[in-house]
Every structure is written in structure tokens, then in C-alpha cells.
């Protein structure tokens, strides 16, 4: 049976298995607006993500899961706190350094696929390497194409590919530069369930067979079940951590958050979340 542990929000979530940390957040806070109208999208989050693992960040809409990912990926700037990629503190890097970071060490998979319509699948996959001015590692490229089942589709443009195929191209694009971590934002949100399952399997294989690190944002418990670990987030705080989630355990975790919500919203900052099991 899986173990679900709800932890105090002001303590870092430990990385199970003692693996090296690929990504860390320390007191990460993001607020919008000022004074009375202040919105705390992220409220002092501490969390670690291990290398070589597939982690899901789960939470209802507006929970702050996307904001967390943006900050961890260096796409958005934090109001306070720190985010680390390996040993690099990315909070405080300037745009130039962040661009370099995104080129070499971070990959992205988007809900809308976001492929460039005028380029073929192959050109889309190799684009990040070209933008960085590097040479494509053909062996790695072939491995990716093989693993993702894209061999027959390389000369097609995005318009000629199905949603699932487009997302697989996007995964290959995210992995081509062998980044330290890949962030996937609701990668199945625009796909039917069969294609979604396929894409999630590919993400898992990328971690298991190719040794990549993937952090996926989702609100879907069945998607989270493909991950090695699910971090639950609600109202801008870490609200739980599930290792080896199943659709049921993930759903239960989410349900628990929902029932907590009114309570959480009125709770004064700094107090701990109720530590009841699922």
C-alpha cells in the first residue's frame, strides 16, 4: 500500500531514497498586487525534487502549482525566497543567464504543444540545439526518435500530426539538449485519454530508460499516477506528498485538499496543515 504523508508546510519535503536533488525551493513566495488587494500565489514553499525521478505537482486550479513551476524553471521571478537548479540559484539570475539556463539545462513540454508550424518535426526537435549554436547529437536524437516512436513522422509539419504525435515531438524537443530537468505543464490537457496515456508512458520511459528528470504539473489524478511521486499543493502551500501514487491515492489526496479548502483559507499563516491520512 502506498504511503501518504502530510507534512507541515514550513518544513522542506524530504527527497525519498536519498537521491541527489535536481531542483529545490526554499521559502519561495510570489505575490501579485499590493496592500488590501494582495494575492499570495505562492506562500513560502519549501520542496525538493530528486534527480532521475518523475514527479507530479498536483493541485486544484488556482492552487499555485503553475506558479511554482514557473519559478522553478526560471520563467518568472519570485517575490522572495530561493529556487535552485542543482547547485545554481536561479532566483536572481538575469535574463541572459536564464536564457542560457533554459537552453542547456531545462526542457519544457506545453499543454498546447507549441510547435512551430512552419518547421518539420525534425526541425522542431533540433531547434533548441540550433538556437544554442551547438551540434545535434545524432545518436541521442535517434534514441529519442526511437523511444518516442517518431521515426516515420520526422518530415511532417505539426499540422499533419495528431495531438499525441505533436506532444511526442514536443517531448523530444524538450529532451534533445539532455537537460537537467524537464518541466511538463498539463501535457495531456489537450489530448484524448488514449493519447494522454501514451504520452505519459513516454514521459515515464524517458525517466526510467533514459535517466531523465521530469517535473509535471497536473490536476488529473490518473496522470499523476504515472509519476514516482506526487507533491500536493493548495493555496500556495505544499499540502501533501504521495510516493508512488495510484489514481485512487492521488484522487483521495485531492479530495482531502478540497474538503480542507475553506479551513485552509481562513487559517493563519505559519500554522501546520492537519496531518490526517487519506
Amino acid at each position, binding site marked *: 500500500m502506498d504511503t501518504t504523508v502530510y507534512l507541515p508546510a514550513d518544513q522542506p519535503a524530504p527527497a525519498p531514497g536519498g537521491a541527489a536533488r535536481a531542483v529545490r525551493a526554499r521559502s519561495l513566495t510570489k505575490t501579485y498586487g499590493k496592500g488590501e488587494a494582495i494575492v499570495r500565489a505562492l506562500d513560502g514553499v519549501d520542496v525538493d525534487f530528486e534527480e532521475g525521478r518523475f514527479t507530479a505537482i498536483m493541485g486544484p486550479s488556482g492552487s499555485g502549482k503553475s506558479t511554482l513551476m514557473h519559478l522553478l524553471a526560471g520563467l518568472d521571478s519570485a517575490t522572495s525566497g530561493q529556487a535552485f537548479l542543482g547547485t545554481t540559484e536561479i532566483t536572481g539570475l538575469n535574463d541572459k543567464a536564464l536564457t542560457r539556463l533554459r537552453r542547456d539545462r531545462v526542457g519544457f513540454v506545453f499543454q498546447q504543444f*507549441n510547435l512551430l508550424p512552419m518547421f518539420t518535426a525534425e526541425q522542431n526537435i533540433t*531547434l533548441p540545439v540550433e*538556437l544554442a549554436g551547438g551540434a545535434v547529437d545524432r545518436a541521442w536524437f535517434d534514441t529519442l526518435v526511437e523511444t518516442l516512436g517518431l521515426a516515420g513522422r520526422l518530415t511532417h509539419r505539426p499540422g499533419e500530426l495528431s495531438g499525441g504525435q505533436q506532444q511526442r515531438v514536443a517531448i523530444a524537443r524538450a529532451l534533445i539538449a539532455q537537460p537537467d530537468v524537464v518541466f511538463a505543464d498539463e501535457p495531456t490537457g489537450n489530448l484524448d485519454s488514449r493519447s494522454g496515456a501514451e504520452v505519459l508512458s513516454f514521459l515515464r520511459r524517458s525517466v526510467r530508460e533514459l535517466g531523465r528528470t521530469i517535473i509535471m504539473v497536473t490536476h488529473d489524478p490518473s496522470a499523476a499516477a504515472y509519476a514516482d511521486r506526487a507533491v500536493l499543493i493548495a493555496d500556495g502551500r505544499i499540502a501533501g506528498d504521495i510516493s508512488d501514487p495510484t489514481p485512487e491515492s492521488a484522487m483521495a489526496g485531492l479530495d482531502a485538499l478540497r474538503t480542507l479548502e475553506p479551513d485552509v483559507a481562513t487559517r493563519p499563516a505559519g500554522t501546520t496543515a492537519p496531518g490526517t491520512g487519506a
Partner: protein
Amino acid sequence: MATSFPTARLTLGQMRRSVGRLTAAGVAIVISTAFVTVTLLAGGVIQGTTHDMVAAQYARADLVVSATDQEQGSFGADDVSAVAAVDGVDTVQPLVSWMGDLRNGGKGGYLAFAPVPEDSRLSPLELTDGAWPAADDEVALTPQVAERLEVGVGDTVTLARTLYPDGWADSQESVDPAADPAAELGEPEEVTETLTVTGLADDPYGAYATYGGAAAVPAATLDAWNAAEPYPNPVSELLVALDVPPAGDSVPAPLSEAIQAAADGVAGGTSVATTEEVATAKTAEQTGGQDLVFFVFVMTFAAIALLIAAMVITNTFQVLVAQRIRTLALLRCIGAGTGQLYRSVLLEAAILGAVASAVGIVTGAVLAQAALLVAPAFDLGVPIPTTITPTWQSVVLPLAVGAGVTVLAALAPARSATRVAPLAALRPSDAPTLHARSGRARLVISLLCVVGGFTALGGGVALGMSGGTQFGLVAAVGGGALAFFGVVLSAVLWLPRFAAALGALVARTGPAARLAVANTLRNPRRTAATSTALLIGVTLVTMMSTGAASARMSADSLLDETFPYDVSVSTSSPDYVEDVRDAVADTPGVAATALVTNAIVTLGDMEDAGIIAADPQDLAAMVNVSDEAERLTDGSILLSQDEADQMSLSEGDRTTVSGTDGSVDLAVVITTADPLNHTITAADLSRITDDDTWTDVWAHISGADATTVLADVQDAAAQVDGEAFVMGPAAQAAQFRQVVDVILGIVVGLLAVAVVIALIGVTNTLSLSVIERTRESATLRAIGLSKEQLRGMLAVEGVLIAGVGAILGIVLGLVFGWAGAATALSVMGDVRYAVPWTDLTAVLAVALVAGLIASVVPARAAVRTHPVAALAAE
């Protein structure tokens, strides 16, 4: 009205949100309507100036009595005194016009002469210094003339006149070709009279401005000089001052009848009118003629500017519709009809057009007024008004044209607005691009235009080259315009391919460039429209500049072929030719001189052959064709190939040249320099004849303004005793070049407006791309595109769009320019096809730099796009 009220409110609301973009399109309209306004106001100024100049010659006369037949009818002395005797008439002044050659040494030339006024009311001239001339050896000058002749009151000037024997004019009517009036009646006689300048008379209203000023002599003297001409100028107008100025705008009938009765000696009868009536009628005559041509000429450029502005507006409204696609879809969802959306876009265009046109009219008026304020600083010699006179046309016309063009240009975007599906509001995707059909009809029509146009152009060129310049020009201009229309119409079909080919070269420079090229080709229609707007302007600029350069070069080579020298001075007697040569050689700017003797000899079996002889070294140092001149040695003669063929001689053959004192055997040297045909050395000439020769001084000008040097040479030659006649093809060439340059400058300046508007279009297109590709830009930023690369990408897009338009425009302009030169200039001789490299490089550089600059504003918007936008679901 039930449906229009919400539409209007909606339109205003949307306009408020798009102020920036509307301003960009508005600038295009402002520039073109300002252009139209300035043209209309300038037309008014020209008309006013013409009227003032026409009226000026009548001074403050109350009436003008005109001969109905301006050619034959002439007022005699009897008529003048009879009119003067009419009851109520105070003074009468016949309007005598006569031109004479008035000089001070080398300075001066033909000049208009005016009579000393009987009454200050009857002359535009006002004495400002000294006294009016009273004797026939006295003269008063306008200040410009005095300045040009470098004389003041008390100095003397010379008047050269030709006295023809009695009956000369009749003898010229003779149809008998053998008739020799000079033998029967005696040779016409050149006389020079010395006149003393007694005073300076100003011409404040510019009555003589077009003549460059005037000289006044007593009326009797002027009459005598005019009467001595074989064909005296008729006195077709009398200026009349009345005892009491007439009340009202017209002449009282009794007075008019009395004057007409008095002037009964005028063939064809007379008419009597007030000065204002005559001036108005004459102005209408002039402004309906050459001034109308000028007006149409400038309006053509205004039309080009408007056309390009229309293309920019169309693109801008495409941007606006694309930008608002979600709003439009939402409106459709909540029940807005397609007609309401259509009207909303058109209403917006009408408001924008009207506001921008109003700004344009004010801008144009301010510019025109500024020009009038600045103009007096450049001594134009023409009194121009100090303020503009806005008419209702100069306000209503630009407003109607500006608003009308804007609405027309917005028709297509308004239609695309109606095609927005209500569903688009729900689609969480990028703003969809607006697709328009490019029809087969377009292909067929444009192909017909291109084929027909180029055929007519080719025919026109062929016609022009075979001598039919006028018909050739009509065919070439019509064909060229048709072909150009076809090219512009079909641009959307082929221009993207050209851009792709050019882009393939650019794409090698890096991933950002490759992205830019791919982006440029994503919306071929828009790229084509933007490039085409620039192409039109660049084609026309290149065409004008190529045509002008070809004209210049053709004229230069024609002059070089005809005249081997820059300046030639002929003297009336060989006695002082050496003095003249020294004087010319000492003139600054003269690099070399040579004495060239003309003689009539027998050459081979050709009697009375004209030859020229010179010292070979002097000649070689002086002529433009030194290489050829150097081949002349003692014992040889230079012959052109044609001449040698005619005489059946070839290089090295010998031919005999004989004169009164003997003959020499000379070796034939074939020269390619036609002007050196029949040239021998001075030494050889001295062995055969001393009679029937006359010697000229030829000079070569170097490194100085030919016109100035020519004037200095004239002065220098005039200092030497005896008469000298100076001829300066170099100065002619320089003047021609100047005229060509001025015309080119004006035309290119007018076209520059169109190019500026087209460049605004490039900015708009790039902005549209940035808006449409917000998500994509964000994705690229997320996967590692740096801000610099994003800026670079847009810069390459801008440069590519502008570059394609510029390069194609240059190619087309060269073709049209050469075709025009071939058609128009063939009458002058061999046409040279010049490539104005400097101009072309400048045009290309301006286009590329402007393309780069055009990308700056859109790029700023693009880099502001946060990568997070790529992840956002909405």
C-alpha cells in the same frame, strides 16, 4: 438607427484601445493628405503669382485697350493720340515690347526694353536712383540687370543692334531660292551704340521678372528701334489712365465705345477692359496651360503616395481585426450581426480617415506657409505672396480623398471581420490568421497586363529609336504603366518565392535568421503587400534616377563627340588671336589652350574641303580625346573611318592636300575621334596656304565649374581689343546636367514621401506578426531563444521584407529607366545606358536600414512577452 448606435459606441471603444496602431496608419494618411493640400495650395500660390505678374505689367492703369487681333492689330501714333483725346482719358501709354542685346564687356545679353513712363501710373517701373533717360543714348536699368552687368549710375553699356536695309522683310517672303536679298539691298549692318546709365528703376511687382529684369529708354527711342526691325513687334495694347477711375468692375459702355471709335486705325478692331479683367483673363489662359501640366504632374505623385498609404491602411486594419478576433467572436456570440461588425470597421476607418486628413490638411497648410516664409531668402526673381490662400477646395478635397481612401482600403479587412466565427471566442488558441483567396482571375488579368504592357513598352522603345519619339513615348509610358500595374497586381503570386530564394541565402547566417525567413513566408500575402508598397516607390525613384543618369551620360558623350574642346574663342581678326589665347590661358580653371586654324583646301579630289590644323602637342594636351590627337605627326592627316571609306583610303595610304601656296603628300591616320576628322599639323598647313584661314582658340577646362569659367573666359576675351565670340559646350553640358539634377531632385523628393509611407507599412506588418505570434515568441524564449536573438529575428524579417521590395524595385526601375531613355533620347544620338550606382546603393541602404529600424518597435513589444505566456492556457 437602432443598430447603428451600439455599433458606434463599440467602434469608439475599440478605437480607444488601439490608439497606437491607428496612429501609425494615421501617419500614412496625414503624409498623403498633407501632400495633396500642399499641391492644391501651391496651385493657388502659382495662380496668384501668375495673376500678380500679369497684372504688374499693366501697373496701375485704369483701362487696357487691346487689339482684338494680337498678331496683326497694332496701335499707330494716330490711334494713340486719338485715344488720349477721348473725353475722360488722362494719359495713354502704348505697351511696346522690344528685346535688345545689352552688354558690359562679356557680361549681359538679350534683355527686355521698356519705355520711360509718361505717367507713373502706367509703368511697373519705379525710379529709385538717378533720373529717367531723356536722350537716345541714355538708359535706366532694373537693379538685377545693373548687378549682372556690374554697372552703376554714370557707367556706360553697349547695345548691339542689326540694321536691316529697307525692304528686307519683303525680300524674305520671296519664294525664289536663287534670290539673294543681301546682294540687291545690301548686307544687314551690325551697329554698336554706347548708352549711359542715368538711373536705376525698381520692378517691385516683378513685371519683368521672367525676363530677368529690364532696361528703360525714352518711348520715342524704343519706338524707333522697334520700327527699325524687319518685323516690328505690334503694339497690341494701350494702357490708359483716366481723369476719374471707373466706378465698379467694368468699363462704362459710352467710354468704351468712344475709345473704340477713336482707335479706328487698328486692324481687326479693339476691346476695352479694366486692368483686373485683362489680368484675370490672361491668368486663366496661362494657368489652364503650362501650369495645369505642372499641377497634374505633382498630383500624380500625390496619387502614388495615396495608393501606397491605402496599402498600409489595409494592412493596418488587418492587424486590428486580427488583434480583436476574440472580441469580434465574442460579439458574434452575444448576437452581433455580420453587418454590424462590417459597419463598425468601416466607421472606424471613416473616423480615422477624417481625423488624419484634418491633421494632414493643417500640416500641409503649415508646411506651405513655412515654405512661403522661407522662399524670399532664395532670390526667385518673382514676387510671391507672403501668406497662403486656403480655398474650399484645398480643405474639402484632401478631406474627401483622405477619408475616402481610408474607407476603401478598409473594405477588405472589414470583410474579414465578418468572417470571424463565433466559435473563435471559445478556442483557446492563438489569434487565427485571416486567409484571403488569391484568385485565378488575378493571375490572368495581371499576366495580360504584364505581357501587353511590356509589348507596348518594347514597341514604344523601337518606335522611339527609329525616330518616332512622340508616339514612342506615348506607347512606352502607357505600356510601362500597364506592365507595372500587372507586376504589382501579381506580386502576391510570385514575390514570396523571390523572398524565399533571397531568404535561403540569409537563412545560412544562423537559427534566428532561419526562423525569420520561415516567418516571412508564413503569410505570403501580407509579405507581398508590404514589399509591394515599397517596391512601387523604389521602382519609381530608380526609374527617374536611371533615366536622368542615362540622359546626362548620353548628353555628355554627344557633346564630347561633337566638340573636342570645352571652350572655343573665335576672333574677327587674326592679329590679336595670340593675345586672346594668352588672356584665355590666364583665366583660372583653364587647363590648356591650343590655337586651331581652319582652312579651305583641296583634299584628294575634294575641292573646298575644310580642314583644321594645330600644333600636335598643344592639341593632344587640350582635347578630350588625347590618345587620338597624339597620333597626329607632321606629314600625316587624321581621317574618320567614314571619311576614309568615302575616299577609298585606308590606314597608311597617302593623299594630297593642296592650297594656294603648294601641296603636301600626307599619310592617312584613321581616327575614332570624329571631331578630329581632317586634322593636320600647323607646320604642314603653313607649307600649303596662308590665305583663307582663320584661327580659333580652343581651351580645356579642368576641376572648376564650367559655367563660371565660361563667364570668366568671356570677360577675359572682352578685355582684348577686337571682338571675340566665345562658345562653351562644357558650360552647356553643365547647365544641362544642372537642369536634369534639379528635376531629378524634385521628382525624387516627391517620391520619397511614398517611400516613407511604405516603410511605415513595414513596421505595421512586423507588429502584426508579433501580435499573432505572441505564444510562439514565448515558446521560443522558453526553449532558449535569447532576447537578442528575438530582436535579431525581427530585424532580419524587416530587412528581408524591405530588401525584397527594394531589390525588385531597383531591377524594375532600371528596366523602365533604360526603356524611357532609349525612347526619349534616341533623337539626340546614341543613348548610353547608365547605372546610377551611387543612387541605387543609397536607395538600397535606405530601404535596408529602414527595414531594420521598422523592426525596433515591434521587437520591443515582442521581447516584453514573457515566456510564461507560452504556458498559459488562455
